[in-house]
């Protein structure tokens, strides 16, 4: 068997890591499993698509692909729009749905609401854009071949961006005043408040970071594949699995977890067939729960 599956797995894994990073951050800072993360991702995909449609038509120079990739200048702008737009969407959800539910003793009602939000957002996307797939570019990214393995410039760009973004978020949250305050507010809101931290604002800041990650995740998936209303929801299970595998709440954990799940999926596809890709994550999830419920980097629960 060729080692091509390793490359494919690492590339897919970097995208999963990006999604898992959003899930794990929501869990760490907002204290619940957010089942609508997939729809935040899809919203990012469509926001970038709309931007490409508008800008690419209006400013032809922006429509052209950059270097060997199929990514256009318009899509780069679209990525920013996706990040900012999804952050705004997440803030709206926090304001009108999650804020009050998170405060409840029965924490699961926020999870339940996120389930409803997920269905509703996906239905809205379907209604607005239909469920047929869309693409950022008509062009094909031509694979580069080195030593018998292939990767397209698009794939390399996406993987590098994903890793860089995760690393940046990790550094900022780990070593900045904002990150410390966010962690403090998540752990003990009452103590944070009497320390002088505006806990509500920290939650909003967390949603902004989560929205940013989700928006970029959507663009990443769209560049490598298709833009569809279910593009994020289909990956929710791998996102969660990667986050749990790495240890819920840990960004480096999400990165490693994402890569491992990506590699496992790719291996399963290479050996068992592509229809079983979706089951791989669940098998890993089951194994983690059985063997090491705290994940690789998490504290034992």
């Amino acid at each position, binding site marked *: 068997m060729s080692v091509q599956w390793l490359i494919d797995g690492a590339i897919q894994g970097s995208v999963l890591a990006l999604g898992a990073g959003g899930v794990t951050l929501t869990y760490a800072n907002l204290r619940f499993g957010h089942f609508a993360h997939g729809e935040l991702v899809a919203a990012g995909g469509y926001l970038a698509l709309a931007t490409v449609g508008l800008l690419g038509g209006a400013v032809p120079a922006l429509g052209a692909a950059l270097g060997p990739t199929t990514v256009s200048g318009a899509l780069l702008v679209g990525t920013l729009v996706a990040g900012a737009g999804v952050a705004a969407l997440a803030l709206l959800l926090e304001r009108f749905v999650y804020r009050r539910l998170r405060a409840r003793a029965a924490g699961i009602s926020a999870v339940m609401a996120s389930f409803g939000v997920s269905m509703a957002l996906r239905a809205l996307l379907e209604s607005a854009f239909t469920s047929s797939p869309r693409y950022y570019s008509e062009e094909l990214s031509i694979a580069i071949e080195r030593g018998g393995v292939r990767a397209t410039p698009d794939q390399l760009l996406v993987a590098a961006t994903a890793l860089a973004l995760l690393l940046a978020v990790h550094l900022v949250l780990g070593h900045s005043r904002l990150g*410390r305050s966010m*962690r403090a507010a998540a752990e003990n809101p009452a*103590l944070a408040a*009497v*320390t*002088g*931290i*505006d806990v509500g604002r920290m939650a909003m800041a967390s949603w902004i970071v989560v929205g940013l990650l989700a928006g970029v995740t959507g663009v990443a998936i769209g560049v490598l594949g298709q833009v569809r209303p279910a593009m994020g929801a289909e990956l929710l299970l791998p996102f969660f699995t990667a986050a749990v595998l790495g240890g819920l709440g840990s960004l480096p954990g999400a990165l490693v977890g994402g890569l491992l799940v990506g590699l496992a999926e790719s291996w399963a596809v290479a050996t068992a067939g592509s229809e079983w890709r979706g089951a791989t994550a669940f098998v890993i999830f089951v194994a983690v729960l059985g063997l090491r419920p705290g994940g690789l980097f998490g504290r034992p629960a």
Partner: protein
Amino acid sequence: MTALEVRGLVAGYESGAPAVRGVDLVVRAGEFVAVIGPNGAGKSTLVRAIAGVVPASAGEIRVAGQDLGKLPAYRRARLGLGFVPQTENVFAALSVRENLVLVAECAGRPAAAGIEVALGAFPELAPLLGRPAGVLSGGERQRLAVARALIAQPRVLLLDEPSAGLAPPVVERLLATLRALAAEGLAVVLVEQNVRAAFAVADRVELLVAGECRLAGSPASLAADPAFAAHYLGVPRPGAPA
């Protein structure tokens, strides 16, 4: 000058009757007030309500004349109201250093100054700076919690049984530190189970029973009250069987 002025404070939890029913508490700058009372009297609820962690349903809370009663807890903290809760009073997942730095940052002070203040009060925290606060022993944790509150340089400091679980010499040093801070103008409200310790440091003692202030006065005057002395100081009532 009046540092803290609480008038007619009523506060409690969703379930049941209010735990604090119309408490008045006035503390001058530099004054050291001890709040004592039986378990469940509402002492913690009183200081929590002043700090803004438990909502007050009636009453006024003023710090240096400014009405804080309607402000969220974090604004009160920034306006000079310090609070050391009875439990869960450090961030377990953050390192000791981060715990200290966080308060300094929130108070707009340099991180180094914050650590200096903390180590000045409790030098024994120095070797622990790198550890997660969650692994500290009970006594170490209490010291970190008090150190955190000192860094912000509050006008009014509320402490909810900070001496619980500390060895007697450490308690003595803690109380001496608070006494010294009061001498520099800090208004201290100390909730304390150990009545003797409270009497030793406080300028004034408030006795809280069932959410109401039953007695208040200087330690000397309270000690002279035979009913109080019998109940809280273990002084035998004249004529009672030994």
